[in-house]
């Protein structure tokens, strides 16, 4: 990447190495994420994709065996600096997990939980956030009449869209998605993918996926991870048609993984 491009990167990962109980899970990772782009991360199981995501919003901190070297800069500021407000960081980098995990409350309560913790108390503002985030997650039409019913009554696909909406209610700057469609039917998957494409108007998306087709459909750029290393990253079009690395080609064409 050229110098000017580096300056405007939203997230810069520099020489990131991650160990769990001394064992390396990520090695010497360098990667930039730009504003308003969709970056897909593909790669076989245990290649460090999820670990990478969880480094960005510092969820790995919760594991006692975790240690890392290198830097992760969000708008030029290292997220591992001691003076970083963890809760604030996690609000700026929203995360959606592979398995939908709405909290055992109503749909509305799920959506306002994050904003309330962040100090937003105004009823109108909260209602506005609920409506806007549900619309962005393509869930508004299905739920507008039953906001005060338990979230667990929703179908799996709806629950996952609720989890997406819940994160969007916090107006994050970066959206981290960890195989968000792995357990979903094609229609729900399509809805989430549509939502993601529209969302990049206001934020950056990092999408970890096991589904290479999904990566080619949704992303601007694609990164290929293997055994804890970034093999290559480039425009999705190029990665899927003529990758620089033969192992990338082998993975995409289904020769392993």
């Amino acid at each position, binding site marked *: 990447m050229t110098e000017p491009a580096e300056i405007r990167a939203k997230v810069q990962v520099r020489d990131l190495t991650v160990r769990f109980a001394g064992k390396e899970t990520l090695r010497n990772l360098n990667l930039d994420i730009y504003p308003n782009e969709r970056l897909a991360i593909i790669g076989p199981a245990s290649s460090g994709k999820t670990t990478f995501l969880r480094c960005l919003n510092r969820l790995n901190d919760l594991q006692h065996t975790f240690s890392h070297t290198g830097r992760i800069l969000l708008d030029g500021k290292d997220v591992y600096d001691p003076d970083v407000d963890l809760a604030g960081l*996690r609000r700026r980098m929203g995360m959606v*997990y592979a398995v939908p*995990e709405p*909290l*055992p409350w109503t749909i509305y309560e799920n959506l306002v939980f994050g904003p309330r913790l962040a100090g937003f108390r105004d009823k109108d503002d909260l209602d506005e956030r609920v409506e806007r985030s549900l619309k962005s997650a393509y869930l508004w039409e299905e739920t507008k009449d039953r906001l005060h019913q338990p979230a667990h009554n929703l179908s799996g696909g709806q629950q996952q869209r609720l989890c997406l909406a819940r994160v969007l209610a*916090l107006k994050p700057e970066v959206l981290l998605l960890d195989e968000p469609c792995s357990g979903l039917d094609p229609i729900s998957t399509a809805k989430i993918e549509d939502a993601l494409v529209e969302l990049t108007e206001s934020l950056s998306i990092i999408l970890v996926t096991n589904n290479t087709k999904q990566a080619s459909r949704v992303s601007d750029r694609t990164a290929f991870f293997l055994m804890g290393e970034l093999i290559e990253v480039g425009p999705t079009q190029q990665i899927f048609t003529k990758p620089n690395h033969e192992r990338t080609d082998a993975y995409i064409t289904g020769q392993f993984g």
Partner: protein
Amino acid sequence: MKQDKLIALALLMVAFSAVSGLALITVFIFKEGLPIIVKTGPGNFFLSSDWDPSSGNFGIFSMIAGSLAVTVCAMVIGTVFGLGLAIVLGEFCPPGLAAILKPVVELLAGIPSVVYGFVGVVTIVPLIRTYLGGPGLSVLASSIVLGIMVLPTVTSISMDALRAVPRSYWQGSIALGATKWQTTHMVMLKAAKSGIAAAIILGMGRAVGETMAVIMVAGNTLEVPHGILDPVRTLTSNIALEMGYASGQHREALFATGVTLFVIIMILNTVALVMARRGAGEGRTR
């Protein structure tokens, strides 16, 4: 094959005799205790504080009040410490430390109650007498001793309840910008509340039924307590203290005290069981 059947039969008999033992005890104490309640009249028996077996007055209100006071105060102590411990062990302290602390807390259950009573008499009672006044033998002394005794029950059952909450709730909440403490009290405790209620009620059952330790530190006077520094007599102490020399109606009245206790504990245990089941149900709907 014949051997199998024999063993099965033998085990079945053992199982039945255990259960029928419980049934016999129930029938026996009700048979011995109910007539005197009817004879004295339930109003007089439960609501009068006049307990004077030699002149035929059997009112157990002061003891019901005593048991109630001691149990409620003990549960305040037991819940604060027990639940606090469960939260720290389950959510905050490193797993290595929890692996040491949890068995230690459970070991508390293995100490004989007379030892608790003894420690109470030797240390807690004089402290209360010196610093807070009164005779020292009091509701407060019994509550502290009982509060410690119910810790293992409250702690381990609350911990199980917290552990039964899906881990994804915790992760989801943290990722939404909640701190560990906010997650614990807004998500985890809320989701585990019926299990925790069951833990408290089971602890309460233990506290109501405890006898030896309470006899040693409660003072055992026959009066309705007016404050936590007053001495009291509980239902259990009454039976244990007087059974040795009671006969006739007096003996029946002690059985009736037992019936009262039995019913209270049955109610508490049933409530706890129902709540624990409901809690387990909530966990499964996910």
